[in-house]
Each structure stands twice: as C-alpha cells, then as structure tokens.
C-alpha cells in the first residue's frame, strides 16, 4: 500500500515552458517537444526547494500508508500479503534514489521522473490488492494530482493525469478478463463497521484530506510571502521614483536659475540700465544671450531625458493629433520623428502669426512665409474675411503633410527656421549628399536641438502649441521673438499684448 504524491516534481504554477508555449504559436500543445520542455523546466534551480519538499513528503506518505496497511491487517480488515511490503519498499527505494540524486545534483530530472511514475504504478498496485475498482484507495489518485498541480507545472500535471487514467484503464480489463485475479475489499462493505475499521478509516481520511491541505497551505504561504515581498519592493520603487522626481525638479531649478541670471544680466546691460552701451557691447550681450539659450536648450534636453528615464516613457513620440502640416524644416535625411517635431514647431509659429495677422485685418503674404490650404471648413476657419493668402512656395522647400488631423498646412517655412541641412541641400548638392549619407540616428539629436531653439514646443504635445497660437489673435501680431509655448498661453490668459 504505497503511494507518494509528495514525491513529485517541483515547479511553479506558470513555468517558463508554459509561457514559451503561449508566446510561440508554433509550439503545439501536446507535442512531445513541449512535454519535454515542461519536464526539463523543473530542473531550474528555482524549483529545487519544491523538489526537496516532494522528497520529504514522499517519505512521509510512504510511511503513513505502510502503517495503514499494517493496521488493516492487524484489525483483520484485509488479509496480510507481502505485496504491501513490496509496494512500500519500492516506493521508498525510488524516493531514496531521487533524494540521493538531488543530494549529488546529478540525474535529478531522471530520478524525479522515475519516482513520480513509480508513484502512480505503486498506487495502482495498491488499489488492485485492495479490491480493484472497489478499493477505498481510489481517492488516493486525487492526492497525486493535487500535489502535482501545486508543486509542478501544467504540463507535468496533465501528463501524469493521463498516465493515471491509463494505468487504471489497464488494470480493470485485466481483472475483467480474469488475467488478474479478484482481490478482497478491506472490511465488509454493507455491514456495521468494526472499531478497527473505524480507526483505520479515520486515519485514511485524514491522510487523503490532510496531504493536499498541507500542500495547499504551504503553497499559499509561499505566495503570501512573495506578495509581501512584492509589496515591499513596490514601495521601495515608488519611494525611489519620488526621490528621483524631486531630484530632477531640484536639478531643473538649480541649472536653469544661473542661466536666467546670465541672460537677464545680458539683457539689463544691453538695455543700458547700468550705463551707456556701445554697439559692440550690445552685440556681445546678444552673443551672451544666444549662448545662454543654447545652454538652456541642452540642459532642458538632458533633464527631459532624465525625466523620461525616470518615468519610463518613450522620449520621442509622434504627435497623436498633428493639426498642422508644414514643409520639412531640416531636410529629408532627418529622422521621421525629428522631422515631425520640426514641422510642428515651424507650423506652430508661422500659423499663429499668420492667423493673428489675418484676424487683425492685415493681409497674409510672403513675409509670413505661409500659405493656407485645406479642406472646406478648415480653410474658412483659417482665412480671415479680409485676409489675402498667397502661395509662397519656393524652390528648395519641401512640402508634405503627414498629420492625421485637419489639414491646415502651411506650405513653406521661414528661412530662419530652416535647418542647416535644408539650406545645404538647396545650395550645395554635394554637401547635402554627404549629410544624407550620415544616416538618421545622429541627425535626430541635432535636428531636435536646432528646431527647439526657434520655437519651443511641448515635447509630447506639439498640437497644444499650435492650438495656443491658433486661438490667440494677439500673440500672432507679436514679433518673431514673442513668447511661445506656455509663456504664450500665460500671455493669452492675461490678455496681454507684448510690445518691444
């Protein structure tokens, strides 16, 4: 009378083999290759604790069933047979083999497989010797399946379930055909149970219920421990992310404040606050300011990168709703994302100014470097009643529209907003070819920086920028260096008309 459901493979509920099977549609469920993967998956070091648990519980269950067999014989519930000893002995032998293999870390999978298969065969033998289909040991199969499902993976559990059915199905026909002789059922079914039968039955019930319960409880405890650990790690990650955000915010302030000082001082000196200024000094102040702005752009890029890394967001995203299309600023060899950004930037500035000029009753012409063309509705919306829009396409400009939103595209780009490569392309074909051969990755960063120096666009929402200008009549009448982005929104909110 021996079975040891405990001597099963160890393993997690959702193994890597299962995951691989889910991800890879070419792996067919039920294939031999997949079955081997399920079995070999249990050889992972992470599963060793469960293998050990299976070994010790195997010894325990073998011992318990041995005692049950002895008790059944003692209380004369079933006649004594040496087959019980053989079955328990076989179980202990295979379990010991698996234990030794695990100790020596050799032939682990092979011995574990042998042990598990032996479990089913030995249990089937015990069922045969206790009445065959009438045996009270039949529920012990459930122990095997329950423990296997908790300690191994789906594949192994299903394989062993099939093997159990096959073993039982092989035994019954052999008994029906008389090849295997009939065996007595313990006790006397249909009569009042004796005290010996009662005690043995209670012990057996405790075993059938207790083993799966113990394994379930152990697994749940393991899961709970992992959950607690996960919660702790999550809290740590949140804390780290918060600290990082605070650090980024602090760094932003600390890096931008001195730049503000440099720029402000240049402005104040150039404005003659500290005394008369010569033209040369004014030029120097302008250079200082330009350099400070370049530095600011670099700092902003660096901080944006840090922030993107901290939040795990993709840094470059195409605008979801590009409401404005525009001629390419930096040339065809730019990366698509950089190109989209430049397009949006240039569009935001040019559209806004042209719109406001049109609304103010002025004509929109060549000096705006824009041309309104769009679907019905958008077109009317863009053009003011007295506005006169003209196509200012020029040779050398690229014209295309890639946005998914309404097509209110402005076709040309002010030369000062063009990238260096666009100018190169127009003027120096060889230089252009050289630039194009450099490939997109290195161009992205430069194009981005270059584009941002002119019009500042929120990184992820260039359409907000366009909308801000679109709605602001006054902002467009502002000079070229009028506030853009959030500053322009601030102006709009205040109803401010900036003046030089």
């Amino acid at each position, binding site marked *: 009378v021996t079975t040891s459901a405990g001597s099963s493979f160890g393993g997690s509920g959702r193994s890597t083999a299962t995951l691989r099977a889910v991800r890879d549609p070419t792996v067919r469920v039920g294939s031999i290759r997949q079955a081997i993967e399920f079995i070999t998956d249990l050889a992972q070091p992470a599963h060793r604790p469960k293998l050990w648990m299976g070994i010790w519980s195997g010894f325990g269950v073998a011992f318990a069933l041995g005692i049950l067999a002895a008790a059944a014989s003692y209380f004369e519930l079933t006649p004594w047979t040496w087959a019980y000893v053989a079955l328990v002995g076989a179980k202990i032998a295979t379990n010991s083999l698996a234990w030794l293999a695990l100790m020596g870390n050799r032939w682990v999978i092979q011995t574990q497989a042998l042990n598990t298969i032996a479990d089913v065969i030995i249990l089937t033998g015990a069922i045969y010797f206790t009445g065959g289909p009438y045996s009270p040991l039949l529920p012990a199969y459930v122990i095997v399946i329950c423990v296997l499902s908790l300690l191994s993976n789906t594949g192994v559990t299903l394989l062993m379930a099939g093997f159990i059915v096959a073993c039982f199905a092989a035994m019954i026909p052999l008994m029906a055909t008389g090849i295997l002789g009939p065996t007595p059922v313990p006790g006397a079914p249909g009569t009042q149970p004796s005290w010996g039968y009662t005690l043995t039955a209670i012990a057996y019930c405790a075993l059938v219920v207790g083993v799966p319960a113990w394994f379930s409880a152990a697994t749940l405890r393991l899961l709970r421990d992992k959950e607690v650990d996960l919660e702790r790690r999550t809290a740590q990650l949140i804390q780290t992310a918060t600290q990082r955000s605070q650090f980024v915010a602090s760094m932003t302030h600390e890096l931008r*404040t001195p730049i503000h000082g440099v720029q*402000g001082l240049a402005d104040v000196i150039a404005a003659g606050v500290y005394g008369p200024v010569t033209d040369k000094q004014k030029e120097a102040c302008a250079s200082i300011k330009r350099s400070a702005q370049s530095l600011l752009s670099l700092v902003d890029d660096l901080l944006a990168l840090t922030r993107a890394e901290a939040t795990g967001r993709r840094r470059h995203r195409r605008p979801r709703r590009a409401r404005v299309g525009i001629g390419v600023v930096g040339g065809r060899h730019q990366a698509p994302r950089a190109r989209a950004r430049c397009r949006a930037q240039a569009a935001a500035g040019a559209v806004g100014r042209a719109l406001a000029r049109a609304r103010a009753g002025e004509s929109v012409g060549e000096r705006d470097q824009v041309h309104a063309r769009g679907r019905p509705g958008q077109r009317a919306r863009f053009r003011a009643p007295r506005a006169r829009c003209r196509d200012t396409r020029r040779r050398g400009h690229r014209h295309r529209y890639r946005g998914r939103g309404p097509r209110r595209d402005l076709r040309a780009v002010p030369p000062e907003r063009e990238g260096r490569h666009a100018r190169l392309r127009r003027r120096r074909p060889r230089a252009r070819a050289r630039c194009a051969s450099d490939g997109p990755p290195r161009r992205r960063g430069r194009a981005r920086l270059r584009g941002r120096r002119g019009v500042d*666009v929120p990184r992820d929402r260039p359409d907000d920028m366009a909308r801000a200008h679109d709605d602001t009549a006054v902002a467009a009448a502002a000079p070229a260096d009028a506030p853009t982005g959030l500053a322009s929104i601030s102006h709009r909110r205040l109803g401010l008309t900036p*003046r030089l």
Partner: protein
Amino acid sequence: MLRSPPVKKILVVEDDPINQMILADFLTANGYETVAASSGPEGIERFDSDAPNLCLVDVQLPRKNGFELVREIKSRPTGPRTPVLLMSAVYSDRDQTSRTIQLGTLADGYLSKPFDLVHLLAQVRQLLDET
C-alpha cells in the same frame, strides 16, 4: 500744477541674489520702485509693511514656497487687489500646459525662467493697467 502719478511699488520675492538684483535694477530703470525679499516669510513681512502694487514671486523659496506665499498674500485684505506674478525655473515652457493652468489658478500670471525682460515688463504693465 500737474501732479505726477505716484510711482508704483513692486515687491520682488526671489532667493537668488543675482536674479533679485537683475529684476530690481530692471524694474527701477523702468520707473518702478522695488522692494526685495529673499524668503517667503520675509516676502509676507514686506507685503504687510510696504503695501506693494504688484508682487513678483519665485516658486522655490526658502522656508515658504511661492504657492504658499501667493495664498497668504491673497488672504490679506489688500491681497485680491494686488496682482501676483509667479515665476519659476522648475517648470519649463516644454512642460505640459496643465501645469501652467494649475499655476495660473493661484496667481495672476506666470513666467517660466529664463524669460525675456521685455516680456516681464509687458506683463507687469498689463497687470498694473498701464497699457
């Protein structure tokens, strides 16, 4: 005899001494009287004692940040009539617009550092109804 209009007083609350100097000098050169403070509590103290016509408040200040300071200024009897212009280097123009709107609900205006002094002047004049 025509009386010249009274000089408007601007409270500059800024912890960075260079920026404080720039703002004070620039506003003084443009005909305003300036009062400077380097921290939140000092800003409130100056607001109570000097009754400025406009406050220029940095967001990051020692001991009491710009938001708290704006809230305190607005809770004073003369607070609602005194426009407050927030400025900060933390939130750049590249940040999302909601940030600005959030800031705008607290103050009467917002400037992202580094800003052009011309824009500052325009905002100040607008808030002081001088345009």
